[in-house]
């Protein structure tokens, strides 16, 4: 089973031939890995060389994103006619500039609410920037909302068809990859059953399989992604790694040091809605961890200061009581 899938993806890698010799060697290594073994590919990874001469895959120019915060349904209804005048805004991104070239795999690092997910939404074209310009060149597959666009009453096979249509594939393209999708998802005879009868794991598997098999040029991954059991998770990870080695641009959001160093060759650290650092993964992680440590330290100090104050106050009270006794 796994061998067939791997052969499929290995075949795609022939296209960008010259510069990716190293990469395809690693890809072959990945392909040979047994899903049930404990061996991990992260240790012996070799990234393909990004193509810096090509037009950039993703461009952000002064991107600002702010969300409107409606106080109530009434203010929302009113906003339709007044054009959001006087509605408070929450700024998430405050003028972002970066360029990502084909073949790069970029990790986005930042604390909660730093705007990582917003960036991914902007790249997938779901959300729109308040101002600034975004250009994306290539087919985007998003491993964000795997089960989005499924119709509960339709069968798995029909849902593959619909979802691929929604993603902009033509009918022949869909027929080409249909079998690959079914095989990867390991749904077997369930594929012709309505999706409402699936377990959540089966749905996720189908969603993941569709996204990975549409032959994306840009892959967007959110960290909170866990599909199926350990074996299937490994299969997913291998599939992602194979895509990376075939020269796909990868955008990755995560807090995990291991996953970031294992998947990315560049990191962007977001802080206060701006690009705080853009460069090597290790440096970005160091900065991020230092900042997190500093914040923790500050919290600890605050706590200590509070304790100190409390102790002093207690002391004062006791002294007063003693004075009164005398």
């Amino acid at each position: 089973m796994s061998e067939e899938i791997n052969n499929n993806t290995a075949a795609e890698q022939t296209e960008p031939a010259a510069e990716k010799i190293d990469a395809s060697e690693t890809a072959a290594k990945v392909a040979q890995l047994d899903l049930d073994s404990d061996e991990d590919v992260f240790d012996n990874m070799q990234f393909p060389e990004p193509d810096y001469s090509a037009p950039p895959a993703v461009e952000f120019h002064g991107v600002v994103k702010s969300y409107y915060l409606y106080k109530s349904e009434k203010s929302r209804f009113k906003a339709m006619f007044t054009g959001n005048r006087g509605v408070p805004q929450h700024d998430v991104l405050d003028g972002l500039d970066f360029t990502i070239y084909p073949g790069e795999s970029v990790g986005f690092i930042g604390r909660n609410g730093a705007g990582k997910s917003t960036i991914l939404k902007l790249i997938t074209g779901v959300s729109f920037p308040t101002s600034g310009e975004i250009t994306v060149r290539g087919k985007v597959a998003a491993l964000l909302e795997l089960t989005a666009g499924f119709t509960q009453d339709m069968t798995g096979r029909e849902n593959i068809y619909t979802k691929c249509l929604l993603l902009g594939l033509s009918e022949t393209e869909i027929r080409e990859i249909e079998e690959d999708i079914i095989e990867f998802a390991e749904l077997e005879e369930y594929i012709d059953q309505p999706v409402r009868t699936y377990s959540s794991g089966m749905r996720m598997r189908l969603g993941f399989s569709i996204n990975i098999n549409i032959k994306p040029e840009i892959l967007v991954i959110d960290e909170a992604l866990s599909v199926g059991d350990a074996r299937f998770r490994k299969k997913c990870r291998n599939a992602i790694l194979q895509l990376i080695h075939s020269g796909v641009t990868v955008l990755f959001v995560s807090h995990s040091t291991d996953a970031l160093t294992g998947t990315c060759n560049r990191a962007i650290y977001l802080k206060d809605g701006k690009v705080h650092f853009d460069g090597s993964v290790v440096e970005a992680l160091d900065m991020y961890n230092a900042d997190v440590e500093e914040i923790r330290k500050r919290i600890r100090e605050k706590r200590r200061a509070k304790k100190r104050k409390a102790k002093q106050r207690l002391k004062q009270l006791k002294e007063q009581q003693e004075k009164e006794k005398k």
Partner: protein
Amino acid sequence: MAEKGYFYSTKSNAKTGLGMIIEEHRGQAKKIMNLSLNHLKATYKGALLGPAWAIIKPSFTLFILWFAFSVGLRGNGMVNGYPRFYFMLSGYVPWFYISEAILGGARSVRSNRQYVTKLSFPMSNIMTFTNLSSMYIHLILLVIMYVVLWAGGYCPSVYNLQILYYLPMMFIYFWVLTWTTAPMAAFSKDFESLVSSIMTGLFWLSGIVYDTTKVKNSVIRHLFYFNPVNYFINGYRRTFLYNQPMFSADNRTETLIMLAELLGLILMGSFYFKRLRKLIPDVL
């Protein structure tokens, strides 16, 4: 894949909502057709008879109509010189489409919210494929209606060809209406409730069960000219039942009013689509 040239940019040439809608539709014809058929299937999936229900339900209503007006209430049989059953049949069939287009169209974006908030699907295409899939049902009902009228001896006639004007015009009119209603209903649920509560009133204010051209009060009779539902329903009657030409003296005023309203709807739809399109993924 490269030859297909997937490209996405927020640098858009479209300055107006109308431009945005045209841009979102460019080259999507086949996809929209597929999705409209898919939508039809999905609506009735999980039932044994499937899409047949889309025909059975209105046919049953028509049967009840026939029973009530041809068997039950035989006494007050004629409207405008035609048996009440045929009169109502030719009014009900377009009304089924119109009510579905107004209500289903307004709800379309909200009920397909995943397409907008999770996938980057062109929003205006949602309105188009929902309206198209109601159109398929309408076409089948139209055939059934034609057979019944033929059996009654009112068809065929040259005037039947007027459907080539009324049908596309009706589709366009209520499709343009959704440019305003669908984004608004997606933005605020109150608007959706507003639309659905208007529907019952609209039924009785349009000449479906009675003939609006025979209303005694001349002010009210002329006010009916502003009701597009009335315009299309009477157009259907002209085409299939009365066998009258679509351009008669008073009809010209009605047509001009309808076209002016359509222009107004295009402007309003363009304005609201532009205003709400980029906000909806964040608030829905």
